[in-house]
């Protein structure tokens, strides 16, 4: 029983970082129609910035904010300098994002070398409750993810900006005629999604070492989460992340361990066949005339 409870707790923490990257992907696709394959590298850059700052003596939670700002700026530059020119041709943007991911990997190798980077556990405690080990930093990651999910969800569903945002997704041209600065919203969402990737990277390096190639691994899971929940749907990303975490935890614990990744992707394929729009329903990207 202890092992089962441990696996359920593991599942929750496995899901957290994936949810953060999934929300970023889903938001950017939902409004801008950009399938940004470099989003994983944005996360990796966030982790590297955190490592750099912590190594320089900056406290972790300050470094975390620094990583969000740097990756947010990276998102701004990428959107304004690259993706803005591909909004009418999403396939170009997709291919461009693959190129950008490789470029970012090599820039990081050039700056920091290829060796994996790690930081000391910012919390460094393990609570033992009823024989179950709860790693404190993982609990912090789950809590931060929960706050980010709540803020994002209510921001989109309740705030004035959120309503305008959803109007832009429904019909960009009409939204623009109503005075909504759609282009600015696209940029804003891209920056916000990028900042979440930066946050994910900072939280990830607090749990595990990262390398310049970490992004290319997590991006697959990020897209799986977004597609399972419904691309463009924030709530869907949360549900998708939790489901994937649960499948990961339980399959690693009770299935063939070497198939752990495969189980998750089988789930994604099954969902996409049975519900092509995702479990909670997604968007097809922004509508334009």
């Amino acid at each position, binding site marked *: 029983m202890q*092992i089962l409870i*441990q*696996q359920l707790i*593991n*599942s929750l*923490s*496995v899901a957290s970082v994936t949810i953060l990257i999934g929300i970023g992907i889903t938001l950017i696709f939902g409004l801008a129609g950009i399938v940004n394959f470099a989003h994983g590298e944005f996360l990796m850059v966030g982790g590297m910035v955190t490592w750099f700052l912590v190594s320089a003596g900056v406290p972790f939670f300050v470094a975390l904010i620094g990583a969000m700002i740097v990756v947010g700026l990276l998102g701004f530059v990428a959107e304004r300098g690259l993706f803005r020119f591909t909004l009418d041709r999403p396939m170009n943007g997709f291919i461009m994002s693959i190129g950008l991911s490789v470029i970012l*990997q*090599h820039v990081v*190798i050039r700056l920091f*070398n*290829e*060796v*994996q980077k*790690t930081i*000391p*556990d910012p919390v460094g405690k*393990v609570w033992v409750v009823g024989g179950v*080990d709860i*790693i404190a930093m993982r609990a912090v990651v789950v809590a931060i993810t929960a706050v980010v999910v709540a803020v994002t969800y209510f921001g989109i569903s309740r705030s004035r900006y959120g309503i305008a945002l959803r109007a832009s997704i429904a019909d960009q041209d009409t939204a623009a005629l109503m005075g909504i600065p759609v282009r600015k919203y696209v940029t804003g969402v891209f920056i916000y999604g990028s900042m979440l990737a930066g946050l994910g990277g900072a939280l*990830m390096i607090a*749990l*595990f*070492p990262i*390398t*310049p*190639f*970490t992004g290319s*691994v*997590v991006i697959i899971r990020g897209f799986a989460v977004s597609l399972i929940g419904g691309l463009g749907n924030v709530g869907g990303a949360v549900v998708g992340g939790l489901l994937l975490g649960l499948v*990961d*935890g*339980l*399959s*690693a*614990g*009770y299935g063939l*361990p*070497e*198939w*752990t*990744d*495969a189980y998750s992707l089988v789930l994604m394929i099954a969902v996409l066949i049975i519900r092509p729009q995702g479990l909670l329903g997604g968007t097809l990207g922004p509508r334009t005339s």
Partner: protein
Amino acid sequence: MKKVLFPFRLTSTRLAVATFGLLAPLVAQAQDQELKIGVVAAQSGSFVSAGNTIVAAANLAAKQINDAGGIKVGGKTYKIKLYIRDNRTDVNVTIASARELVEDIGVKAIWGTETHDFSVSMAKITGPAKVLQFSGNSSLGAVLDDKSVAPGGWLHYTFQTEPQEWQRSGSTAKGVLSLLTPLMDHPPKHSVVFVGNDATGQYLSSHYVKALEAEGQQVDLVKYPPDTTDFSPLLTRIKGMHPDIVHFWYNGDSTLTAFPQALKLDVAPAYFLFGVDPGIYAERHLKSDKPVTLSCVPVCWGSSPYPEVQNYFKNYFALGAAKGPQSSVSLLYYDYFFMYAKALEQVGSIDNPDAVVDALLKMKYQGVVSPVPLVFNAHHQVTFATEVCLVQPGTSDQFKAAVEQPPAAPPPGDTGG
């Protein structure tokens, strides 16, 4: 008149000096011939931390040989010129690089690569061209046999610069158990080998499991998908198996990711980390109150008892090499530059690869990687001991090293290779 001539003479003198200055190196270069050697390694992509060690070892060896005056072959002096190619962790790029080095540049030998299938692909290009190949993959043992290494065989010019896997596994298992047992409450009986589920991991672990069983261990094998980051579900499963020792096998980067998670989840009373140098253990400030052993590929940066090894790593890092988990992998490549140079000197020609192969097979060479001379067997494989070291519990930088000789024969159930 003098006013006119003096400047002219001065200019002439300067011209003469300048001309001499320009020509002198060319004259010297004309005397020093160039020995073209290729290096194919991952300088980008997922194998980069292993690949860069090959490049760093090659740069160090070439520099030391050239600084010492080069290689004297048949009355001529050769300086090594390295042609380094990044295979981008891609077998197709590896093949293209090997073709370029062999067919366009005309290298006499190639060092690399870091994985079995890449090395085998390269050997299909180097073999027909009679270009020597030095590869540090123990898994080559699966294809190096009487037929393939015979004259005319496709691996006649290929040399495996790492011991056979049953030898390495045997000496490692013995070293790990001998260091851990005195620190445990009871003699260990149950081991879990935790390994990445890729071709190399499967090959290596198949030998290591047999080696542990030969030492009386009951062994469970748990494989994880390559590129796993969050090991907690798998480690929780292992914890439920109640092992005496968890052996993190083969991939140093993955081990350095998984091991701290295992400590937090208190998975086992003792651990073994393969492919993790003590140097990186200390750099990362890892610490465990449980006994931990490390072994390296092949000797330990950070705790080797041999001054030659310590001096090697001093020079290696002084040349700018990164301090990675697999820095000691470089020693699977370094010594063979000197061995090859010695073979060329004995043969007296750089254009007689068959004679160079014969010279290498007869040679005993005292290198850095082993306290006893390196010798290639009839299957073009070397044999040397493995260093295993114990981290003193509660410390990050206190190590006790043991040097274990390989067993005389494969354990029961292991077909060798």
